[in-house]
């Protein structure tokens, strides 16, 4: 699809640094920007958001929040995301192929989100400039694309023009056309109707599926450690999506027998440890018990499932997935001579931002009992580090 054939691989222990040593050094330097155990400790002890602000001035976020007179979770989130984006863009400018394509791949995920937001928003007659503000900054298109988007009129026609002339040309355009093609094959529907009728989340899930598959093919083609480590991460991600889609489809039309094989099955990525044996079994699952029986066959997921099934309420399946992701990403970040650390950096920072939002929200809403319920990044006390608190 969009994937250009890499001119050369990522290189091995002897040659990696020739091309990518500098970029890797940069991202490794950012290791120190993550919040430490004691930072988290201080933050969770705060009584007010002003305290949080003061505490954050001791951290890498000092510059981002320097201008804030007050703090609220939304502002903090925005500032933190902006900081991440700035760092990421800086990294991107320092890279050469194939690392730059790899970094671009990371942004496609956010681009998909943005495209969906724009299309759906434009369809319901929202002001497009307002929508652009809400887009994730990591998934912004080229300047020229961004400028042309608001020029389309707010009508069904203008919006189909928008799709046909602008969005197809974006990096995620091919995913779109693939989705539309498949839908057309299934129901013979016109592209515009598909976008109007199919739920935004389902379209998004389909696009993400294509993205994961595409990304996976790309890292496979790079070979070496990158293929091993990123392959593992992406496979796990694909599995997570498959399990989540199944679990979250219960109680929605997607779980209806007819939809299960036609629509839900199409959302399962064609990569991953669950693919193909697991996903074909997942396709017939109709409730949690059956899902549990399928997952029991896969040791790494049966453990996660048992936490969900025990239903203590302490940890949801999302928390467990996050925990496992953080562990895998930390490993990826700390090993060398592959691209995984860049992906890990973005994802771990994302987790950190999530944690910050969580902590500030807990303080704001005075839910101090819940404040510890997040997954720390690079924590010395993490279970997988074998130390106890």
């Amino acid at each position: 699809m969009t994937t250009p054939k890499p001119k050369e691989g990522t290189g091995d222990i002897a040659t990696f640094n020739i091309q990518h040593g500098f970029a890797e050094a940069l991202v490794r330097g950012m290791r120190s920007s993550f919040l430490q155990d004691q930072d988290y400790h201080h933050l969770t002890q705060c009584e007010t958001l002003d305290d949080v602000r003061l505490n954050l001035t001791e951290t890498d976020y000092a510059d981002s929040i320097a201008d804030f007179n007050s703090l609220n979770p939304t502002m903090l989130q925005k500032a933190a995301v902006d900081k991440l984006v700035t760092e990421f863009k800086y990294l991107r400018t320092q890279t050469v192929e194939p690392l730059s394509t790899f970094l671009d791949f990371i942004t496609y995920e956010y681009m998909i989100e943005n495209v969906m937001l724009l299309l759906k928003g434009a369809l319901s007659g929202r002001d497009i400039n307002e929508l652009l503000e809400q887009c994730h900054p990591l998934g912004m298109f080229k300047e020229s694309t961004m400028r042309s988007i608001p020029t389309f009129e707010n009508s069904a026609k203008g919006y189909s023009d928008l799709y046909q002339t602008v969005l197809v040309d974006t990096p995620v355009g091919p995913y779109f056309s693939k989705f539309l093609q498949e839908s057309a094959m299934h129901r013979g529907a016109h592209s515009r109707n598909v976008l109007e009728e199919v739920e935004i989340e389902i379209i998004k899930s389909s696009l993400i599926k294509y993205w994961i598959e595409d990304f996976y093919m790309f890292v496979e083609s790079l070979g070496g450690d990158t293929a091993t480590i990123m392959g593992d991460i992406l496979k796990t991600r694909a599995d997570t999506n498959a399990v989540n889609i199944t679990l979250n489809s219960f109680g929605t039309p997607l779980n209806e027998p007819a939809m299960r094989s036609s629509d839900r099955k199409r959302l399962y990525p064609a990569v991953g440890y669950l693919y193909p044996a697991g996903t074909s079994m997942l396709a017939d699952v109709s409730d949690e018990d059956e899902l549990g029986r399928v997952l029991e066959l896969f040791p790494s997921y049966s453990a996660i499932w048992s936490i969900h099934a025990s239903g203590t309420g302490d940890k949801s399946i999302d928390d467990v997935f996050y925990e496992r992701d953080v562990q895998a990403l930390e490993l990826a970040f700390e090993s060398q001579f592959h691209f995984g650390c860049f992906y890990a950096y973005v994802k771990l920072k994302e987790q950190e931002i999530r944690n910050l939002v969580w902590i500030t929200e807990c303080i704001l809403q005075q839910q101090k009992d819940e404040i510890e319920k997040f997954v720390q990044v690079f924590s010395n006390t993490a279970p997988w580090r074998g130390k106890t608190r």
Partner: protein
Amino acid sequence: MAEVPPTRMNQQIFKGKLKAAQGGHKLLKKKADALKVKFRDYAKNISETKSGMATDASSAFFSLTQAEYAAGNFKQKVAEGSMNARIRVGAGVDNVAGVKLPVFTKYETGAVADNQSLGLVGGGKKIVAVREKFTVLLDMLIKLASLQTSFVTLDEALKVTNRRVNALENVTIPKIEGVLAYIGRELDELEREDFTRLKLVQGKKEQEEKEEMKKKEASKALKKPGKENSADITAAFDATDDEDVVF
């Protein structure tokens, strides 16, 4: 008060009015009491529900935070697209002592939920929890809305009723009583005047009779010409002696 002529007929009319006013007063007082009881109920209920609302609301908001942690930023997606209300409120009417109180009842249109697949790739269960929490909160708010509307309506009705009760008690009834007293006084006065007048007339008549008797006797005795006599009679009659009789 002066414009009411103090006649027996008016007295009758005003007596009727007084009776009606007192009856009305009693009834309104009863109504006011009934409203007051209900009003107090509502007030208590509102104050309880409102304090309960605070906890419900914070748990609802927190569930949203949890969902956001698990599912990422999904808020902007919720507000997109056209939608049909799944929950509406029907407006019924409750009746307290003749005051119509609007009552809202939750009413599900049966429309399919929007954005059902929200959080499909993660956090979906948390979003379902948000739906539930907010539905609970909404139920409570709808109840509260009924209470509050009733409260305001009752408040208004109570004020009006109280005003009427007070008006009857402090203005209308005393006024009627005043009129009645006035009519009574005037009528008594008239009666007394009549009595004295009659007495006077009677006295005069007796005197005249006596004088006539005397004159008759005298004329019998003197046998004088009757000319003088007739002049005497007219001289004894004085027009001012007798007042005009006013009925």
